[in-house]
């Protein structure tokens, strides 16, 4: 079992519904977020290309955040989901520094917070909130170890890339380009 996500940048319109859905589902306080939209524009008028991406924790295979955590609050659960146990976190910020994706933030209640792949939903057989709400169906979530899962097929069939491969963290979010 290895959870991952594939996001089709060709379909994403950058509406940010994934951001609001995460905020409401997980009661994230205003001013903070676990996921966000990035845009890259290339070229010069009128020969332009625009890539829009929904970004979040990459739930990497090689996790500098977990390695640098002095209390063990950053940890990996079944399926490779990287989590933070809020009660154990001392807010030292080492994980934030070590993350090449800027995927973690200080929660105002005094701990570091990040994307959980909505494991509370996943364990009930639901998709993460961001995936389940996306109006363009540009996001796929599932088991990368299962070659018959939709996500495995999507990743196999399409040209994909990961973000910051040079960081060597083996990220598990794949962008269809």
């Amino acid at each position, binding site marked *: 079992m290895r959870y991952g996500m594939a996001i089709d940048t060709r379909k994403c319109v950058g509406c940010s519904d994934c951001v609001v859905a995460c905020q409401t589902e997980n*009661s994230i306080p205003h001013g903070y977020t676990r996921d966000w939209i990035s845009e890259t524009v290339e070229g010069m008028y009128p020969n332009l290309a625009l890539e829009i991406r929904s970004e979040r924790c990459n739930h990497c295979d090689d996790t500098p955040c977990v390695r640098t955590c002095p209390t063990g609050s950053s940890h990996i659960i079944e399926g490779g989901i990287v989590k933070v146990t809020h009660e154990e976190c001392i807010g030292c910020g080492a994980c934030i520094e070590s993350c090449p994706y800027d995927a973690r933030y200080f929660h105002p209640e005094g701990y570091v917070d990040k994307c959980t792949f909505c494991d*509370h939903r996943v364990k009930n057989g639901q998709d993460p909130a961001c995936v389940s709400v996306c109006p363009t169906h540009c996001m796929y979530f599932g088991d990368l170890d299962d070659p018959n899962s939709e996500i495995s097929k999507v990743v196999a069939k399409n040209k994909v890339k990961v973000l910051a491969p040079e960081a060597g963290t083996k990220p598990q979010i794949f962008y269809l380009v």
Partner: protein
Amino acid sequence: MKTTRRDFIKISSLGIGGLALSTSPILGWVPSFLKEDDNTPDDSTAKRYPNYCEVCFWNCAGWVYTNKDKDGNEKIWKIIGNDDDPNSNGRFCPRGTGGIGMYYDKDRLRKPLKRVTGEDGNQTFVEIEWDEAIDIVAKKMKEIKTKYGPESFALFKHGTSGKHFATLFKAYGSKNMAGPAYSQCKAPREEGFRMTFGHPLHSPEPLDIRNTRCLVLIGSHLGENMHNGQVQEMSEAIENGASIITVDPRFSTAASKSKFWLPIKPSTDIALLLAWMHVIIKEKRYDIDYVEKNTSGFEQLKNHVKNFTPEWAYGITTIKPDIIRKTAREMAAASPAVIIHPGRHATWYGDDTQRSRAIAILNALLGSWGRRGGFFNPEKAKLPKYPMPAFPKPKWSWRDIAPDKYPLAKMGVTNLLIDGSHPDKKEGHKIKAWFVVGTNLPVTIPNSKRTIEAIHNQEFIVVVDTMPSEMAGYADIVLPEATYLERYDDLRLAQHREPTIALRMPAAKPYAETRPGWKMCKDIAGKLGLSEYFNYNDYSEVLDWQLKKIGSSLDEMKEIGVMKLDRKYNDLYFHEHMEHEFETPTGKIEFYSNGMLAAGFAPMPVYTKHPEPPKGFYRLIYGRAPMHTFSRTTNNPYLMELMKENALWVNPKTAKDWGLKTGQRVWLQNHQGAVSTFSIAVRVTERIRQDSVYMVHGFGRLNKKLTKGYGAGISDTEMVTDVKIDKETGSTGMRSNFVTFLTEEPEKKEKTV
């Protein structure tokens, strides 16, 4: 649109200090084998209530979830789509998801307000009780009726609760009602299509985007306007390999998904449409059988477009002839599974009915109306009307304000009601009082100076809203409305591939002393002796009565939220072997319209040259962002986080000429001298033509009570003073203004309400 991680980090890092003090690292530590997951919400234990969204007109149906907060109080938690809803297919857009922000907005109106003038002459609002507010409104309605007749009281409305107020006004004796959804938005499109196919499009537009092979967007920025179902289907079309052709002076999100982007010179769209027709007819790429069977006036059209060559259009549109030919062939190759998108906000340059006719005609040439992958035939559910007496017949209506104008308008024209309200209206029928429900006229109707002059000419103004809008600032009485999450309203009967019924019910008690619109209407009607039009104690009784008439009930709808019904007729697409009767004078699709001619207009669309920006000025284009609906959301705590203010898109060459940098703040002045109240941040981008600038509509709020929206960016409406009226429908062309940059703050009086 751009949400960068950095913005959020910057905010979150402020919390570090507090955090180190508030936790004890030693006591907080637990051995990892004892780790418990954090308390997480659970759909299965939460309560849910059906609703349909009111953040925009798409009205997607979904579920409002509530759960218990730390203190054990039931609170609204989240909103998600209803899988049975064809408008959303179970997936809301960011505004629908963020709709809970309308409920949680700290700046909401709480209690009725009355304008009072102090001894010093200063006017302020004081909070009053509902009984007093209703009394004052009813007394004024009686007074206006006695002095001038009920017709002199106008109703401006937008949104679902507007229907209750329409009933109140019809019962009272006035049909002077209008909403910006017509004359500031769809009117030219609806009437252009009516004059061609005998039928307007209504909402949601019956476009078979998911089955199309080619989608042509002309100034329509799907994806930035989150017309939910259409955005979803566009995504499906992309997945299926359909080609998209986008005509837009700006490299919109849709343009970035397109096979062809045509960065047209603004205001020249009709020339492009005529050239496309020319190519398609000349190269015999139109649907010959379809045109022969279903249309009238083909020979006249053929003759009409004979000289409108791509070379002719190139000089006007700046689009190269071979691109015009290639794109014409691209759409013809997909025929009939092709959609020249009719757009929605169609009030641009004052010849908008003609442009909409051109779009309609091009669709007809390619045989897409009534065809799979083109336009389907929608069906809408019908419910019996709750019994009430017949309405009295008003002596005059909005049309009589200017009887010789706008013959094609089929609904109330907002700006005509404003004309009738303005001090320069000396003769004939006049408007003396306004009832404004859920629409923010100074921010919505262009030339706000004229709107405000009309406002000052009124004897009485009532505003119903959930928020302290700019309009509310001009009211004599403000009635605070409960949001859609806290009230019953009419059942939604949206047209679609299959008819559906959707329920709105409260998920929470009305906030503070807010009340649902139906309750206000019922109470006012009671004071006016019109109770028989509101013969219920609670609006849920009306819904239950209607639902029981069709074999369902309110209780059933509370469980399912959306009821899917079977189509009555098997006619989603044309049956190829059958004759079709169109509701036009000829019974055919009209390329040539005698109706247009008889009304004094061109029977076939013609290109008219429009003014171009003077030196140093740029055409102001405005549009939508996916997380905002006009000024309705520009104080919403969730959606403002995604986009806190609008930015001014400026081409790098223009920026260089002016020495402008991204992030620099500028003020704007238009070609008639109007200066923006606030400043806007420049966004230097290759994604726009050099002769144009762009901003998202709905920002630059003027009401200081809006703690998030006040002063955030510029209101495009403020910059639109040169309004080009569409003579067919009276709608207001608003892409007709040119602006220049003021890099220093201009001196001016504060213009806030």
